[in-house]
Protein backbone atom coordinates (compact mmCIF):
# COMPACT_ATOMS: atom_id res chain seq x y z
CA UNK A 1 0.00 0.00 0.00
CA UNK A 2 2.77 2.35 0.98
CA UNK A 3 4.80 1.45 -2.09
CA UNK A 4 1.82 2.04 -4.29
CA UNK A 5 1.25 5.43 -2.76
CA UNK A 6 4.87 6.40 -3.34
CA UNK A 7 4.73 5.22 -6.89
CA UNK A 8 1.65 7.27 -7.42
CA UNK A 9 3.30 10.34 -6.04
CA UNK A 10 6.35 9.89 -8.27
CA UNK A 11 4.01 9.55 -11.20
CA UNK A 12 2.17 12.68 -10.26
CA UNK A 13 5.44 14.49 -9.73
CA UNK A 14 6.54 13.50 -13.16
CA UNK A 15 3.33 14.77 -14.57
CA UNK A 16 3.63 18.07 -12.79
CA UNK A 17 7.20 18.59 -13.91
CA UNK A 18 6.30 17.74 -17.45
CA UNK A 19 3.42 20.16 -17.55
CA UNK A 20 5.68 22.82 -16.10
CA UNK A 21 8.31 22.22 -18.77
CA UNK A 22 5.61 22.24 -21.39
CA UNK A 23 4.23 25.51 -20.11
CA UNK A 24 7.66 27.13 -20.20
CA UNK A 25 8.39 25.85 -23.68
CA UNK A 26 5.08 26.89 -25.16
CA UNK A 27 5.03 30.24 -23.44
CA UNK A 28 8.60 30.91 -24.54
CA UNK A 29 8.05 29.97 -28.13
CA UNK A 30 4.77 31.86 -28.27
CA UNK A 31 6.71 34.87 -27.09
CA UNK A 32 9.27 34.34 -29.82
CA UNK A 33 6.48 34.33 -32.39
CA UNK A 34 4.60 37.27 -30.97
CA UNK A 35 7.69 39.34 -30.21
CA UNK A 36 8.02 41.04 -33.61
CA UNK A 37 4.34 41.99 -33.60
CA UNK A 38 4.47 43.41 -30.10
CA UNK A 39 7.63 45.23 -31.07
CA UNK A 40 5.96 46.76 -34.08
CA UNK A 41 2.93 47.87 -32.12
CA UNK A 42 5.14 49.48 -29.54
CA UNK A 43 7.17 51.21 -32.23
CA UNK A 44 4.13 52.36 -34.13
CA UNK A 45 2.50 54.18 -31.25
CA UNK A 46 5.67 55.94 -30.20
CA UNK A 47 6.17 59.61 -30.85
CA UNK A 48 9.30 60.59 -32.72
CA UNK A 49 10.85 62.07 -29.60
CA UNK A 50 10.72 58.74 -27.85
CA UNK A 51 12.97 57.18 -30.43
CA UNK A 52 16.10 58.37 -28.68
CA UNK A 53 14.78 58.44 -25.18
CA UNK A 54 16.85 56.02 -23.11
CA UNK A 55 14.04 55.24 -20.72
CA UNK A 56 11.61 54.07 -23.40
CA UNK A 57 11.94 50.46 -24.35
CA UNK A 58 8.45 49.08 -24.74
CA UNK A 59 5.89 51.49 -23.40
CA UNK A 60 6.20 54.91 -25.00
CA UNK A 61 6.31 58.09 -23.01
CA UNK A 62 4.42 60.10 -25.60
CA UNK A 63 1.76 58.32 -27.54
CA UNK A 64 1.19 59.46 -31.06
CA UNK A 65 -0.67 58.39 -34.14
CA UNK A 66 1.69 60.33 -36.37
CA UNK A 67 3.34 57.19 -37.70
CA UNK A 68 0.03 55.74 -38.73
CA UNK A 69 -0.96 58.97 -40.46
CA UNK A 70 2.32 59.07 -42.34
CA UNK A 71 2.27 55.45 -43.33
CA UNK A 72 -1.36 55.63 -44.45
CA UNK A 73 -0.77 58.66 -46.62
CA UNK A 74 2.47 57.38 -48.13
CA UNK A 75 1.17 53.92 -48.87
CA UNK A 76 -2.10 55.34 -50.15
CA UNK A 77 -3.44 52.81 -47.72
CA UNK A 78 -7.17 52.64 -48.38
CA UNK A 79 -6.80 52.43 -52.13
CA UNK A 80 -4.03 49.88 -51.79
CA UNK A 81 -6.11 47.89 -49.37
CA UNK A 82 -9.00 47.81 -51.80
CA UNK A 83 -6.73 46.83 -54.70
CA UNK A 84 -5.02 44.10 -52.77
CA UNK A 85 -8.27 42.80 -51.43
CA UNK A 86 -9.84 42.65 -54.87
CA UNK A 87 -6.82 40.90 -56.34
CA UNK A 88 -6.45 38.40 -53.53
CA UNK A 89 -10.14 37.65 -53.26
CA UNK A 90 -10.55 37.13 -57.00
CA UNK A 91 -7.56 34.85 -57.38
CA UNK A 92 -8.45 32.99 -54.21
CA UNK A 93 -11.97 32.16 -55.25
CA UNK A 94 -11.01 31.23 -58.80
CA UNK A 95 -8.07 29.15 -57.63
CA UNK A 96 -10.15 27.31 -55.06
CA UNK A 97 -12.80 26.51 -57.66
CA UNK A 98 -10.47 25.24 -60.35
CA UNK A 99 -8.32 23.34 -57.87
CA UNK A 100 -11.35 21.71 -56.26
CA UNK A 101 -12.53 20.51 -59.67
CA UNK A 102 -9.13 19.15 -60.61
CA UNK A 103 -8.56 17.64 -57.18
CA UNK A 104 -11.89 15.83 -57.27
CA UNK A 105 -11.23 14.51 -60.74
CA UNK A 106 -7.81 13.24 -59.75
CA UNK A 107 -9.20 11.59 -56.65
CA UNK A 108 -12.41 10.01 -57.91
CA UNK A 109 -13.02 10.44 -61.61
CA UNK A 110 -10.18 8.40 -62.99
CA UNK A 111 -9.65 8.35 -66.72
CA UNK A 112 -6.94 7.09 -68.95
CA UNK A 113 -3.76 8.99 -68.25
CA UNK A 114 -5.02 10.77 -65.15
CA UNK A 115 -2.17 9.43 -63.08
CA UNK A 116 0.28 10.74 -65.62
CA UNK A 117 -1.37 14.15 -65.41
CA UNK A 118 -1.20 14.04 -61.66
CA UNK A 119 2.53 13.53 -62.00
CA UNK A 120 2.37 16.81 -63.94
CA UNK A 121 0.76 18.46 -60.90
CA UNK A 122 3.62 17.22 -58.75
CA UNK A 123 6.04 18.61 -61.31
CA UNK A 124 4.45 22.06 -61.04
CA UNK A 125 5.00 21.92 -57.30
CA UNK A 126 8.63 20.95 -57.72
CA UNK A 127 9.78 23.46 -60.31
CA UNK A 128 10.80 26.77 -58.72
CA UNK A 129 8.71 29.63 -60.11
CA UNK A 130 11.89 31.46 -61.02
CA UNK A 131 12.65 28.88 -63.69
CA UNK A 132 9.63 29.80 -65.79
CA UNK A 133 9.47 33.43 -64.81
CA UNK A 134 11.12 34.98 -67.87
CA UNK A 135 9.21 33.05 -70.54
CA UNK A 136 6.01 33.76 -68.63
CA UNK A 137 6.88 37.42 -68.55
CA UNK A 138 7.60 37.56 -72.26
CA UNK A 139 4.55 35.47 -73.01
CA UNK A 140 2.27 37.81 -71.07
CA UNK A 141 3.90 40.86 -72.55
CA UNK A 142 2.84 39.78 -76.04
CA UNK A 143 -0.03 37.56 -75.20
CA UNK A 144 -1.18 35.80 -78.34
CA UNK A 145 -2.63 32.47 -77.16
CA UNK A 146 -1.05 30.55 -80.05
CA UNK A 147 -1.87 33.20 -82.60
CA UNK A 148 -5.60 33.44 -81.87
CA UNK A 149 -5.66 36.95 -80.46
CA UNK A 150 -3.55 38.57 -83.22
CA UNK A 151 -5.89 36.90 -85.68
CA UNK A 152 -8.85 38.74 -84.18
CA UNK A 153 -7.46 42.09 -83.10
CA UNK A 154 -4.46 42.30 -85.34
CA UNK A 155 -1.82 42.44 -82.65
CA UNK A 156 -0.98 40.60 -79.44
CA UNK A 157 -2.17 42.19 -76.21
CA UNK A 158 0.05 43.25 -73.39
CA UNK A 159 -1.34 41.71 -70.24
CA UNK A 160 1.29 43.10 -67.93
CA UNK A 161 0.19 45.70 -65.43
CA UNK A 162 -3.30 44.32 -65.28
CA UNK A 163 -4.92 41.65 -63.18
CA UNK A 164 -5.23 39.37 -66.18
CA UNK A 165 -2.10 37.31 -65.51
CA UNK A 166 -3.44 36.50 -62.07
CA UNK A 167 -6.96 35.80 -63.27
CA UNK A 168 -5.82 33.59 -66.15
CA UNK A 169 -3.45 31.55 -64.05
CA UNK A 170 -5.97 31.10 -61.28
CA UNK A 171 -8.81 30.09 -63.60
CA UNK A 172 -6.51 27.42 -64.96
CA UNK A 173 -5.29 26.34 -61.52
CA UNK A 174 -1.72 27.34 -62.22
CA UNK A 175 -1.34 30.32 -59.95
CA UNK A 176 0.98 30.64 -57.01
CA UNK A 177 1.33 27.24 -55.31
CA UNK A 178 -1.79 25.91 -57.01
CA UNK A 179 -0.25 22.46 -57.30
CA UNK A 180 -0.27 22.26 -53.54
CA UNK A 181 -3.97 23.10 -53.41
CA UNK A 182 -4.81 20.43 -55.97
CA UNK A 183 -2.83 18.01 -53.85
CA UNK A 184 -4.72 19.01 -50.69
CA UNK A 185 -8.11 18.63 -52.39
CA UNK A 186 -7.16 15.28 -53.88
CA UNK A 187 -6.05 13.95 -50.52
CA UNK A 188 -9.23 15.16 -48.94
CA UNK A 189 -11.62 13.73 -51.52
CA UNK A 190 -9.83 10.43 -51.36
CA UNK A 191 -10.66 10.33 -47.66
CA UNK A 192 -14.43 10.56 -48.19
CA UNK A 193 -15.90 7.05 -48.21
CA UNK A 194 -16.92 5.77 -51.62
CA UNK A 195 -20.28 4.63 -50.21
CA UNK A 196 -21.42 8.23 -49.81
CA UNK A 197 -20.86 8.84 -53.48
CA UNK A 198 -22.44 5.59 -54.56
CA UNK A 199 -25.54 6.24 -52.49
CA UNK A 200 -25.94 9.54 -54.32
CA UNK A 201 -25.68 7.81 -57.70
CA UNK A 202 -28.24 5.25 -56.58
CA UNK A 203 -30.64 8.04 -55.84
CA UNK A 204 -30.21 9.29 -59.35
CA UNK A 205 -27.74 12.11 -58.96
CA UNK A 206 -25.42 12.75 -61.86
CA UNK A 207 -21.68 13.03 -61.35
CA UNK A 208 -21.84 16.80 -61.40
CA UNK A 209 -24.70 16.89 -58.93
CA UNK A 210 -22.88 14.54 -56.60
CA UNK A 211 -19.89 16.82 -56.67
CA UNK A 212 -21.89 19.97 -56.01
CA UNK A 213 -24.41 18.65 -53.50
CA UNK A 214 -22.53 15.92 -51.66
CA UNK A 215 -18.81 16.32 -51.99
CA UNK A 216 -18.36 20.08 -51.78
CA UNK A 217 -20.42 20.58 -48.60
CA UNK A 218 -18.37 17.81 -47.01
CA UNK A 219 -15.14 19.43 -48.10
CA UNK A 220 -15.63 22.66 -46.15
CA UNK A 221 -12.57 22.19 -43.89
CA UNK A 222 -10.27 21.68 -46.83
CA UNK A 223 -11.91 24.52 -48.74
CA UNK A 224 -11.26 26.80 -45.79
CA UNK A 225 -7.64 25.66 -45.66
CA UNK A 226 -7.11 26.34 -49.34
CA UNK A 227 -8.96 29.67 -49.23
CA UNK A 228 -6.90 30.90 -46.32
CA UNK A 229 -3.57 29.75 -47.72
CA UNK A 230 -4.23 31.11 -51.14
CA UNK A 231 -5.54 34.42 -49.87
CA UNK A 232 -2.65 34.95 -47.50
CA UNK A 233 0.04 33.92 -49.92
CA UNK A 234 -1.39 36.08 -52.64
CA UNK A 235 -1.62 38.98 -50.21
CA UNK A 236 1.99 38.65 -49.16
CA UNK A 237 3.42 37.66 -52.47
CA UNK A 238 5.99 40.04 -53.83
CA UNK A 239 7.52 37.70 -56.36
CA UNK A 240 4.77 37.74 -58.96
CA UNK A 241 3.24 41.07 -58.07
CA UNK A 242 6.48 42.96 -58.57
CA UNK A 243 6.97 41.21 -61.91
CA UNK A 244 3.50 41.45 -63.38
CA UNK A 245 2.28 44.66 -61.77
CA UNK A 246 4.74 47.45 -62.12
CA UNK A 247 2.58 50.49 -61.52
CA UNK A 248 -0.59 49.10 -59.99
CA UNK A 249 -0.60 49.46 -56.26
CA UNK A 250 -0.99 46.41 -54.11
CA UNK A 251 0.10 45.93 -50.56
CA UNK A 252 3.31 44.03 -51.14
CA UNK A 253 4.68 46.37 -53.80
CA UNK A 254 3.75 49.34 -51.68
CA UNK A 255 5.49 47.85 -48.71
CA UNK A 256 8.70 47.14 -50.53
CA UNK A 257 8.82 50.64 -51.97
CA UNK A 258 7.71 52.30 -48.75
CA UNK A 259 11.19 53.38 -47.57
CA UNK A 260 11.91 54.92 -50.96
CA UNK A 261 8.60 56.73 -51.18
CA UNK A 262 9.00 57.92 -47.64
CA UNK A 263 12.34 59.54 -48.31
CA UNK A 264 10.86 61.30 -51.34
CA UNK A 265 7.94 62.65 -49.34
CA UNK A 266 10.14 63.86 -46.54
CA UNK A 267 12.41 65.52 -49.05
CA UNK A 268 15.20 67.54 -47.54
CA UNK A 269 13.81 67.48 -44.09
CA UNK A 270 16.48 66.60 -41.57
CA UNK A 271 14.59 63.56 -40.44
CA UNK A 272 14.73 62.20 -43.98
CA UNK A 273 18.32 61.29 -43.35
CA UNK A 274 17.45 59.52 -40.14
CA UNK A 275 17.35 55.78 -40.80
CA UNK A 276 15.67 55.13 -37.46
CA UNK A 277 12.74 57.27 -38.34
CA UNK A 278 12.43 55.60 -41.73
CA UNK A 279 12.48 52.24 -40.06
CA UNK A 280 9.85 53.39 -37.60
CA UNK A 281 7.42 54.32 -40.34
CA UNK A 282 8.24 51.13 -42.18
CA UNK A 283 7.35 49.09 -39.13
CA UNK A 284 4.05 50.92 -38.96
CA UNK A 285 3.51 50.14 -42.61
CA UNK A 286 4.10 46.44 -42.06
CA UNK A 287 1.69 46.50 -39.15
CA UNK A 288 -0.96 48.12 -41.32
CA UNK A 289 -0.37 45.57 -44.06
CA UNK A 290 -0.75 42.52 -41.86
CA UNK A 291 -3.63 43.90 -39.83
CA UNK A 292 -6.34 42.69 -42.25
CA UNK A 293 -4.73 39.26 -42.31
CA UNK A 294 -4.72 39.02 -38.54
CA UNK A 295 -8.38 40.01 -38.41
CA UNK A 296 -9.16 37.39 -41.05
CA UNK A 297 -7.15 34.80 -39.16
CA UNK A 298 -9.10 35.47 -35.96
CA UNK A 299 -12.25 34.45 -37.80
CA UNK A 300 -10.99 31.30 -39.46
CA UNK A 301 -8.49 30.01 -36.94
CA UNK A 302 -11.05 27.86 -35.18
CA UNK A 303 -11.24 25.67 -38.27
CA UNK A 304 -7.59 24.88 -37.81
CA UNK A 305 -7.68 24.56 -34.09
CA UNK A 306 -10.68 22.27 -33.96
CA UNK A 307 -10.63 20.22 -37.06
CA UNK A 308 -7.20 19.96 -38.55
CA UNK A 309 -7.53 16.27 -39.12
CA UNK A 310 -10.30 16.97 -41.58
CA UNK A 311 -8.56 19.74 -43.45
CA UNK A 312 -7.28 17.40 -46.12
CA UNK A 313 -3.64 18.01 -45.36
CA UNK A 314 -3.34 14.33 -44.57
CA UNK A 315 -5.17 11.77 -46.61
Amino acid at each position, binding site marked *: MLILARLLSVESWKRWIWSFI*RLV*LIAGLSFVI*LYPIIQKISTAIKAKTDLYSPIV*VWIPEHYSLENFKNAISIMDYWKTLLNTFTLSATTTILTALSCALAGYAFARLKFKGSNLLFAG*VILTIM*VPPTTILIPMYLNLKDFSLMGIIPFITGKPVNLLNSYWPFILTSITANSLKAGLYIFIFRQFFRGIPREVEEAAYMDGASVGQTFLRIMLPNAIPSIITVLLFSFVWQWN*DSFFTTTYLTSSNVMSTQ*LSSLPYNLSIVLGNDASAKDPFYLSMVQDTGILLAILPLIILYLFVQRYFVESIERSGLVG
Partner: protein
Amino acid sequence: MKLISKLGMKNRTYAEQKALLGFLFVLPWLLGFIFFFIIPLVNSFRYSLSKIEANAAGMKISYIGFENYINALTVNTSFNRTLTESIINMVVNVPLIVIFSLFLAVLLNQKFIGRSIARSIFFLPVILASGVIMTLETSSLVQAVNDQNQGSGGAIHALGAYELAGLMEDAGVSESIVNYLTSAVERIYQIVSQSGVQILIFLAGIQTISPQLYEASKMEGATGYEAFWKITFPMVSPLILVNMIYTIIDSFSRNEMTDLIKETGFTNFDFGLSSAMAWLYFVSIMLILLISSYIVSRKVFYQE
Protein backbone atom coordinates in the same frame (compact mmCIF):
# COMPACT_ATOMS: atom_id res chain seq x y z
CA MET B 1 -23.54 20.37 -66.65
CA LYS B 2 -26.95 19.54 -68.04
CA LEU B 3 -25.96 20.42 -71.56
CA ILE B 4 -23.00 18.14 -71.40
CA SER B 5 -25.02 15.27 -70.07
CA LYS B 6 -27.63 15.76 -72.78
CA LEU B 7 -25.03 15.86 -75.47
CA GLY B 8 -22.87 12.95 -74.68
CA MET B 9 -24.09 10.69 -71.97
CA LYS B 10 -27.14 8.96 -73.27
CA ASN B 11 -25.44 5.80 -74.32
CA ARG B 12 -22.47 5.74 -72.03
CA THR B 13 -21.82 3.46 -69.12
CA TYR B 14 -21.42 4.85 -65.67
CA ALA B 15 -17.64 4.40 -65.75
CA GLU B 16 -17.35 6.12 -69.09
CA GLN B 17 -19.43 9.02 -67.83
CA LYS B 18 -17.15 9.40 -64.88
CA ALA B 19 -14.06 9.28 -67.02
CA LEU B 20 -15.42 11.90 -69.39
CA LEU B 21 -16.44 14.24 -66.59
CA GLY B 22 -13.12 13.64 -64.92
CA PHE B 23 -11.37 14.82 -68.02
CA LEU B 24 -13.65 17.87 -68.22
CA PHE B 25 -12.91 18.72 -64.59
CA VAL B 26 -9.19 18.47 -65.19
CA LEU B 27 -9.38 20.40 -68.45
CA PRO B 28 -8.95 23.93 -67.01
CA TRP B 29 -5.89 22.81 -65.15
CA LEU B 30 -4.58 20.97 -68.20
CA LEU B 31 -4.91 24.09 -70.38
CA GLY B 32 -3.09 26.13 -67.79
CA PHE B 33 -0.52 23.41 -67.41
CA ILE B 34 0.25 23.52 -71.12
CA PHE B 35 0.13 27.30 -71.62
CA PHE B 36 1.50 28.53 -68.32
CA PHE B 37 3.83 25.73 -67.41
CA ILE B 38 5.07 23.39 -70.13
CA ILE B 39 5.53 26.00 -72.85
CA PRO B 40 7.32 28.46 -70.56
CA LEU B 41 9.43 25.62 -69.21
CA VAL B 42 10.52 24.55 -72.67
CA ASN B 43 11.07 28.16 -73.66
CA SER B 44 13.13 28.76 -70.59
CA PHE B 45 15.35 25.85 -71.53
CA ARG B 46 15.62 27.20 -75.07
CA TYR B 47 16.55 30.66 -73.80
CA SER B 48 19.18 29.17 -71.56
CA LEU B 49 20.90 27.76 -74.64
CA SER B 50 20.75 30.94 -76.65
CA LYS B 51 21.75 34.53 -76.85
CA ILE B 52 18.80 36.86 -76.71
CA GLU B 53 18.77 40.35 -78.05
CA ALA B 54 15.58 42.21 -77.35
CA ASN B 55 14.95 45.47 -79.09
CA ALA B 56 12.06 47.45 -80.46
CA ALA B 57 11.70 45.15 -83.45
CA GLY B 58 11.27 42.11 -81.26
CA MET B 59 13.48 39.38 -80.00
CA LYS B 60 16.37 37.78 -81.73
CA ILE B 61 17.23 34.36 -80.41
CA SER B 62 20.39 32.71 -81.60
CA TYR B 63 21.63 29.36 -80.47
CA ILE B 64 24.96 29.42 -78.67
CA GLY B 65 25.09 26.08 -76.91
CA PHE B 66 26.16 25.87 -73.31
CA GLU B 67 27.86 29.24 -73.20
CA ASN B 68 25.36 30.69 -70.74
CA TYR B 69 25.89 27.81 -68.35
CA ILE B 70 29.65 28.18 -68.55
CA ASN B 71 29.20 31.89 -68.03
CA ALA B 72 27.10 31.37 -64.94
CA LEU B 73 29.49 28.88 -63.42
CA THR B 74 32.81 30.52 -64.22
CA VAL B 75 32.40 34.17 -65.15
CA ASN B 76 29.53 35.45 -63.00
CA THR B 77 30.95 36.54 -59.68
CA SER B 78 28.09 35.84 -57.38
CA PHE B 79 26.39 32.78 -58.83
CA ASN B 80 28.53 30.04 -57.32
CA ARG B 81 28.63 31.66 -53.93
CA THR B 82 24.89 32.32 -53.83
CA LEU B 83 24.05 28.83 -55.01
CA THR B 84 26.24 27.08 -52.44
CA GLU B 85 25.03 29.43 -49.73
CA SER B 86 21.38 28.83 -50.41
CA ILE B 87 21.91 25.08 -50.68
CA ILE B 88 23.86 24.94 -47.43
CA ASN B 89 21.21 27.02 -45.74
CA MET B 90 18.58 24.64 -47.00
CA VAL B 91 20.47 21.54 -45.88
CA VAL B 92 21.05 23.04 -42.44
CA ASN B 93 17.53 24.32 -41.92
CA VAL B 94 15.41 21.50 -43.27
CA PRO B 95 16.21 18.84 -40.61
CA LEU B 96 15.88 21.42 -37.85
CA ILE B 97 12.51 22.61 -39.09
CA VAL B 98 11.16 19.08 -39.55
CA ILE B 99 12.30 17.87 -36.12
CA PHE B 100 11.17 21.03 -34.42
CA SER B 101 7.74 20.97 -36.00
CA LEU B 102 7.23 17.30 -35.14
CA PHE B 103 8.15 18.04 -31.55
CA LEU B 104 5.79 20.97 -31.37
CA ALA B 105 3.00 19.03 -33.02
CA VAL B 106 3.31 16.33 -30.37
CA LEU B 107 3.31 19.01 -27.71
CA LEU B 108 0.30 20.80 -29.12
CA ASN B 109 -1.60 17.55 -29.37
CA GLN B 110 -1.49 17.00 -25.63
CA LYS B 111 -4.28 18.26 -23.45
CA PHE B 112 -3.53 21.34 -21.41
CA ILE B 113 -5.18 24.58 -20.45
CA GLY B 114 -5.00 27.20 -23.16
CA ARG B 115 -4.27 24.70 -25.89
CA SER B 116 -6.41 26.39 -28.49
CA ILE B 117 -4.74 29.73 -27.82
CA ALA B 118 -1.31 28.12 -28.11
CA ARG B 119 -2.32 26.50 -31.38
CA SER B 120 -3.59 29.75 -32.82
CA ILE B 121 -0.30 31.41 -31.94
CA PHE B 122 1.79 28.66 -33.47
CA PHE B 123 -0.11 28.75 -36.73
CA LEU B 124 0.25 32.51 -36.94
CA PRO B 125 3.56 32.30 -38.85
CA VAL B 126 1.67 30.66 -41.71
CA ILE B 127 0.19 34.08 -42.25
CA LEU B 128 2.94 36.41 -41.21
CA ALA B 129 6.13 34.75 -42.32
CA SER B 130 5.71 34.77 -46.02
CA GLY B 131 6.79 36.97 -48.85
CA VAL B 132 7.55 40.60 -48.48
CA ILE B 133 6.90 40.87 -44.76
CA MET B 134 9.60 38.37 -44.00
CA THR B 135 12.18 40.21 -46.07
CA LEU B 136 11.30 43.56 -44.61
CA GLU B 137 11.29 42.26 -41.10
CA THR B 138 14.93 41.28 -41.24
CA SER B 139 15.84 44.80 -42.25
CA SER B 140 13.96 46.52 -39.47
CA LEU B 141 16.41 48.80 -37.81
CA VAL B 142 14.39 49.75 -34.77
CA GLN B 143 14.08 46.12 -33.89
CA ALA B 144 17.80 45.51 -34.22
CA VAL B 145 18.58 48.50 -32.06
CA ASN B 146 16.08 47.47 -29.44
CA ASP B 147 17.66 44.05 -29.33
CA GLN B 148 20.96 45.73 -28.74
CA ASN B 149 19.54 48.00 -26.08
CA GLN B 150 18.23 45.15 -24.03
CA GLY B 151 21.84 44.52 -23.22
CA SER B 152 21.30 42.50 -20.10
CA GLY B 153 18.74 40.21 -21.68
CA GLY B 154 20.86 39.62 -24.72
CA ALA B 155 23.94 38.92 -22.64
CA ILE B 156 22.15 36.32 -20.58
CA HIS B 157 20.88 34.69 -23.70
CA ALA B 158 24.32 34.56 -25.28
CA LEU B 159 25.84 33.34 -22.05
CA GLY B 160 23.28 30.57 -21.85
CA ALA B 161 24.07 29.32 -25.31
CA TYR B 162 27.77 29.67 -24.63
CA GLU B 163 27.66 27.73 -21.39
CA LEU B 164 25.57 25.02 -22.91
CA ALA B 165 28.10 24.74 -25.71
CA GLY B 166 30.95 24.41 -23.23
CA LEU B 167 29.03 21.83 -21.28
CA MET B 168 28.38 19.72 -24.34
CA GLU B 169 31.95 20.00 -25.52
CA ASP B 170 33.13 18.81 -22.13
CA ALA B 171 30.75 15.90 -22.42
CA GLY B 172 32.54 14.88 -25.58
CA VAL B 173 29.98 15.88 -28.19
CA SER B 174 31.78 16.69 -31.40
CA GLU B 175 32.30 20.35 -32.09
CA SER B 176 30.41 20.50 -35.35
CA ILE B 177 27.27 19.14 -33.72
CA VAL B 178 27.59 21.63 -30.89
CA ASN B 179 27.96 24.49 -33.34
CA TYR B 180 24.95 23.27 -35.24
CA LEU B 181 22.80 23.17 -32.13
CA THR B 182 23.87 26.53 -30.77
CA SER B 183 23.32 28.16 -34.12
CA ALA B 184 19.87 26.59 -34.08
CA VAL B 185 19.17 28.26 -30.76
CA GLU B 186 20.25 31.57 -32.15
CA ARG B 187 18.08 31.21 -35.22
CA ILE B 188 15.05 30.10 -33.26
CA TYR B 189 12.82 32.80 -34.68
CA GLN B 190 13.70 31.88 -38.24
CA ILE B 191 12.94 28.24 -37.53
CA VAL B 192 9.71 28.85 -35.66
CA SER B 193 8.45 31.20 -38.29
CA GLN B 194 9.10 28.73 -41.09
CA SER B 195 7.44 25.76 -39.48
CA GLY B 196 3.81 26.83 -39.32
CA VAL B 197 2.51 24.69 -42.16
CA GLN B 198 4.68 21.77 -41.11
CA ILE B 199 3.23 21.81 -37.60
CA LEU B 200 -0.21 21.86 -39.16
CA ILE B 201 0.57 18.83 -41.30
CA PHE B 202 2.11 16.84 -38.44
CA LEU B 203 -0.73 17.71 -36.10
CA ALA B 204 -3.25 16.56 -38.65
CA GLY B 205 -1.31 13.33 -39.03
CA ILE B 206 -1.07 12.69 -35.31
CA GLN B 207 -4.79 13.21 -34.92
CA THR B 208 -5.57 10.49 -37.42
CA ILE B 209 -3.73 7.87 -35.35
CA SER B 210 -6.38 5.83 -33.60
CA PRO B 211 -6.44 6.26 -29.82
CA GLN B 212 -6.79 2.50 -29.36
CA LEU B 213 -3.12 2.07 -30.16
CA TYR B 214 -2.13 4.35 -27.33
CA GLU B 215 -4.56 2.72 -24.94
CA ALA B 216 -3.26 -0.73 -25.74
CA SER B 217 0.34 0.34 -25.31
CA LYS B 218 -0.52 1.98 -22.01
CA MET B 219 -2.11 -1.26 -20.83
CA GLU B 220 1.08 -3.08 -21.69
CA GLY B 221 3.00 -0.57 -19.63
CA ALA B 222 4.64 1.60 -22.25
CA THR B 223 5.79 5.04 -21.14
CA GLY B 224 4.95 8.16 -23.05
CA TYR B 225 8.47 8.19 -24.45
CA GLU B 226 8.16 4.64 -25.77
CA ALA B 227 4.72 5.36 -27.15
CA PHE B 228 6.17 8.26 -29.12
CA TRP B 229 8.96 6.22 -30.70
CA LYS B 230 6.96 3.04 -31.28
CA ILE B 231 3.61 4.50 -32.32
CA THR B 232 3.61 8.18 -33.14
CA PHE B 233 6.90 8.25 -34.99
CA PRO B 234 6.26 5.34 -37.37
CA MET B 235 2.72 6.52 -38.02
CA VAL B 236 3.75 10.02 -39.01
CA SER B 237 6.90 8.96 -40.85
CA PRO B 238 5.30 9.36 -44.31
CA LEU B 239 4.56 12.92 -43.30
CA ILE B 240 8.19 13.47 -42.45
CA LEU B 241 8.86 12.89 -46.12
CA VAL B 242 6.06 15.23 -47.12
CA ASN B 243 7.22 17.91 -44.73
CA MET B 244 10.79 17.62 -45.84
CA ILE B 245 9.80 18.14 -49.45
CA TYR B 246 7.51 20.97 -48.50
CA THR B 247 10.22 22.70 -46.51
CA ILE B 248 12.67 22.48 -49.38
CA ILE B 249 10.12 23.84 -51.82
CA ASP B 250 9.03 26.54 -49.42
CA SER B 251 12.57 27.85 -49.23
CA PHE B 252 12.37 28.82 -52.92
CA SER B 253 10.34 31.84 -52.12
CA ARG B 254 12.76 33.34 -49.67
CA ASN B 255 16.27 32.94 -50.81
CA GLU B 256 18.97 34.92 -52.45
CA MET B 257 19.16 32.70 -55.47
CA THR B 258 15.70 33.80 -56.53
CA ASP B 259 16.72 37.42 -56.15
CA LEU B 260 19.87 36.90 -58.18
CA ILE B 261 17.99 35.20 -61.00
CA LYS B 262 15.39 37.93 -61.05
CA GLU B 263 17.99 40.65 -60.98
CA THR B 264 19.94 39.12 -63.86
CA GLY B 265 16.77 38.84 -65.88
CA PHE B 266 14.99 42.09 -65.19
CA THR B 267 17.68 44.54 -64.20
CA ASN B 268 20.49 43.48 -66.50
CA PHE B 269 18.12 42.10 -69.16
CA ASP B 270 20.32 39.07 -69.70
CA PHE B 271 17.49 36.60 -70.23
CA GLY B 272 19.75 33.82 -71.45
CA LEU B 273 22.06 33.91 -68.47
CA SER B 274 19.14 34.24 -66.09
CA SER B 275 17.45 31.18 -67.58
CA ALA B 276 20.66 29.21 -67.39
CA MET B 277 20.99 30.12 -63.73
CA ALA B 278 17.41 29.16 -63.08
CA TRP B 279 17.97 25.78 -64.70
CA LEU B 280 21.14 25.11 -62.76
CA TYR B 281 19.27 26.02 -59.62
CA PHE B 282 16.35 23.79 -60.55
CA VAL B 283 18.63 20.84 -61.31
CA SER B 284 20.53 21.20 -58.05
CA ILE B 285 17.29 21.34 -56.09
CA MET B 286 16.03 18.28 -57.92
CA LEU B 287 19.21 16.46 -56.93
CA ILE B 288 18.76 17.41 -53.30
CA LEU B 289 15.12 16.38 -53.40
CA LEU B 290 15.93 13.04 -54.98
CA ILE B 291 18.80 12.21 -52.63
CA SER B 292 16.96 13.24 -49.50
CA SER B 293 13.70 11.54 -50.43
CA TYR B 294 15.65 8.40 -51.32
CA ILE B 295 17.31 8.37 -47.90
CA VAL B 296 14.15 9.19 -45.97
CA SER B 297 11.76 6.99 -47.92
CA ARG B 298 13.74 3.88 -47.03
CA LYS B 299 12.97 4.52 -43.39
CA VAL B 300 9.36 5.42 -43.87
CA PHE B 301 6.76 3.05 -42.51
CA TYR B 302 3.60 2.51 -44.52
CA GLN B 303 0.62 0.79 -43.05
CA GLU B 304 -0.43 -0.98 -46.20
